[in-house]
């Protein structure tokens, strides 16, 4: 992806982004034939474990679509700077520290740009280069990857789900994985409490109406970034995607419904979620690093059309590898997209938040919030707000630290918990088994998870926040700021490079 010099991505597409990586020596074009059946995933996992280049599989065995390709974890960042490839994708400097990156993201997110629409022609909308409608659709002809041994099936798990509110003009973009069942059917993981699932379970299904949806695979990077964010209800992600790329996102109408989708996507699956129809979903190796089970029932997607570019590229995430020392697309997008968005959201809600940063080794479960306040009431209110909004289902823990603690530095945060969070006064549980939880966890038994038809566990859980503020007062600096600066200069002169966040 080229940059016009103003941080604006001039060729906003997944394949342009991959070309940028290629030019930088950060992409491996795997030309040997590779199977979608575990092999592509194994290579992508190994690449993640070794902080290696992004693999683009250019020859996929047993694909029914000419030239169809796979790319493994295209937005996986480095362990040191999880946001670096997302920054590259958005035309931002990749080698900046976390604070600078956050500031740049916040600046763009606060300046949204309205999308435009384009004609439904292959020239204007590359996703229309090939169109299959009705019985012509063959979902299984695409090389959807089988990612982990033990998965319930082949998945599309790195896409944007486009779904409309039946009562307004609002269209939600989100990410909900889909397990392919046959030529025309998939099950979609919808967990009540999130925006699109709520629209389905509590509006469409209660009215016994099908929910039109589009699964947009291989979108331009800005669209993928906003799809993982918790953009407030009623606000279209398309505007924020435009903000991230500093230019309008181009949308084109679907073939079989009224939805508009990003025109430069690699592939679009049009269909509808059927009320009161469920299909098996899972097990699946999930974001917290374990296979979770058991298999459960999730809403059924019936496919009406598939459109795609020639030689489409299907991105996938080796889910479950973004824990511990290893990054994957989920964990990097958590750090690079969700964190800045959450920071913005908390500030907009009036909270005195410096930055909200995911715990480096555990996506979607624990977050660190650096704040100027250590007032117990203010921290409780902040935690209460988060746990009742976007932090409700997945996140179990928030850790509050002083402004002097770098939330990107997990060592500093761990030290703050260990030395400044008093078990007596600073660990706050929101009740015992009073709060909702998604079944995507490993601390509940299968019985506790149950098979609730709306996708939350049958048993409730607790959530907690840890007040680890107080570092600054507890440990007065032995070394003066002036001495530290001179020490850094001296070390730099000797070739010792300070790590990120220092």
């Amino acid at each position, binding site marked *: 992806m080229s940059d016009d010099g103003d941080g604006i991505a001039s060729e906003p597409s997944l394949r342009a982004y991959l070309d940028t990586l290629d030019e930088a020596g950060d992409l491996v074009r795997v030309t*040997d034939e590779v199977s979608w059946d575990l092999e592509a995933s194994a290579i992508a996992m190994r690449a993640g474990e070794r902080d290696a280049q992004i693999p683009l599989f250019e020859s996929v065995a047993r694909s029914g679509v000419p030239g169809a390709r796979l790319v493994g974890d295209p937005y996986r960042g480095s362990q040191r700077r999880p946001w670096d490839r997302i920054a590259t994708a958005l035309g931002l400097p990749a080698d900046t520290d976390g604070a600078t990156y956050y500031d740049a993201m916040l600046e763009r997110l606060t300046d949204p740009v309205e999308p435009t629409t384009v004609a439904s022609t292959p020239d204007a909308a590359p996703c229309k280069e090939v169109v299959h409608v009705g019985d012509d659709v063959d979902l299984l002809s695409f090389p959807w990857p089988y990612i982990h041994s033990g998965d319930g099936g082949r998945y599309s798990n790195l896409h944007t789900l486009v779904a409309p509110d039946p009562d307004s003009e609002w269209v939600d973009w989100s990410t909900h994985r889909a397990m392919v069942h046959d030529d025309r059917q998939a099950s979609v993981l919808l967990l009540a409490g999130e925006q699109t699932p709520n629209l389905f379970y509590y509006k469409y299904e209660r009215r016994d109406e099908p929910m039109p949806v589009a699964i947009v695979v291989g979108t331009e990077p800005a669209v993928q970034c906003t799809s993982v964010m918790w953009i407030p209800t009623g606000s279209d992600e398309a505007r924020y995607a435009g903000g991230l790329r500093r230019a309008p996102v181009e949308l084109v109408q679907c073939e079989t419904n009224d939805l508009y989708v990003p025109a430069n996507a690699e592939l679009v699956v049009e269909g509808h979620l059927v009320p009161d129809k469920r299909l098996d979903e899972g097990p699946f190796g999930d974001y917290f690093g374990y*296979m979770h089970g058991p298999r459960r029932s999730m809403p059924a997607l019936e496919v009406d059309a598939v459109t795609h570019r020639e030689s489409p590229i299907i991105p996938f995430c080796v889910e479950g590898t973004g824990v511990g020392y290893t990054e994957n697309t989920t964990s990097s997008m958590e750090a690079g997209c969700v964190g800045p968005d959450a920071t913005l959201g908390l500030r907009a809600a009036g909270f005195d938040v410096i930055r909200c940063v995911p715990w480096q080794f555990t996506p979607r479960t624990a977050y660190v919030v650096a704040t100027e306040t250590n007032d117990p009431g203010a921290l409780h209110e902040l935690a209460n707000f988060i746990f009742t909004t976007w932090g409700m289902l997945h996140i179990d823990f928030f850790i509050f630290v002083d402004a002097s603690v770098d939330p990107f530095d997990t060592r500093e945060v761990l030290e703050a918990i260990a030395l400044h969070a008093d078990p007596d006064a600073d660990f706050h549980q929101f009740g015992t088994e009073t709060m909702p939880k998604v079944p995507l966890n490993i601390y509940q038994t299968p019985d506790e998870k149950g098979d609730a038809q709306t996708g939350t566990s049958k048993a409730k859980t607790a959530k907690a926040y840890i007040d680890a503020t107080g570092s600054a007062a507890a440990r007065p600096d*032995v070394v003066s700021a002036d001495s530290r600066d001179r*020490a850094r200069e001296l070390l730099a002169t000797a070739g010792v490079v300070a790590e990120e966040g220092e």
Partner: protein
Amino acid sequence: MEFRETVDALATADDLVTIDERIDDPTLPFAVAAESARSNGPAVLLSDVPGEGSLACGVRGGPDRMLRRARLPWYRYAVGMGLPADTSYGRMLDVLTTPPADRPSLRRRAAAASGHDRDVTSLCLPVAGEDDRQLVSDGILAVEAGDRQLWAPVRGEVRGRSTLRVHVPASVAKRAPENAPVSVALGVPTAALLAAHLSSAQTQPWRRWSAPEVAAALDDVPLAPCAGGLLPASAEVVVDGTLTRAAGSATVPRAAWEDVANSEPFAVAVDRVASRSDPVLPLAPLGEPLGDDTHLTSLVEGARLSARVNGYWGVSPVSWIGLPVEAGLGVCFVASEILYAGFEWQLANTLFSFGPTFDKVVVLDTDATFENLASALDDMWVKAHPSHDWIFSEAAAPAATAPSYRADGQTGSRLYVDAAWDPRWDEEFIAPEVEFELMYPEEIRETVAERWHALGFDGTETSEERDE
């Protein structure tokens, strides 16, 4: 291995940089040591500093585990004892808890340090802050009590030209006779420093061993006579004097080991300062994150608690016990077989009883490793049920010593996190981990590994190497 040999070994391993630039600012060496430690930098040798000798910073420090690094926190200790650079934590614990079948004989040789100066201020000892006194941050004190040779770690300061004020563990202080001849050695072998800690803490199984015997069991540490009895012959500096009990404490930053052992101050009236030619003095950034003293205490406490707990119930279910340096010794991680429901409670509370620095324990399954702290810190959040498995005691427990709160000793709660699988669960409840070995058939794993470089990948196994 002598101290200066350890310095050389670290330099050979590209883990020590030498700065030859003249440094006149007396506070700068401590700041350099603190900054290099905090930013996971190398050890630093400052060759041109005020006073006699050069300063070696962070020789007993090490990096954190917040990245998958080529080196682990205790790597410099392994190097200092002549062990392989990639020595595992388990092996380190074995070394520190397993005496040889026969007590080693103590080898003697002439002391490397010589001279009869009495001016301690002539040494290149640093200061931490502008108004501070010269600092003794890494060394051992030798004193004889009856027929027993005692060694103790010291932390202290220079008070005038011929007086030191040093803090030593109370276990040694109470046995040291008033006005006894005493020696303080700086720049000693790593094995000798560890021996001083293990011995003064009366750690099993070394309780009946003298400190020099412990040192000899850990490494080849020849000894030489001194005013205080015997000290490592290779010591860079030996200060001989007379011990008196001091009325006040040293004002320099406390050492991490003082969170384990109450320390008492001594004054040492200096009779003689002997040093090697071009002595190399150690500098540990006391009180700073990832300081040498924190690393040392982490290792010794890990060994002490492991020796204490395993066998405590007639069996040895514990794989390892570790106090991460990254957490400033305020948390203890333990990997253990959970013998029966409730064993995790016993285990955590036993550790609370024996380990004074922490009031938080994380219980892990035996497949967890201390090397992979990131994974342990993932399990803490995802395997433990936020309400069932975060267990707080009643608020009547004594205050831990490492944390900043309740420094007045007020009682409060302790917390343990049970991040191990519940032994009551059926086998099918146990979720398999997403990892390369488990997720892919052997044939695919082998093919991928064999073709890796041919496919065009050049990734390495550590994040550091990628950045380089």
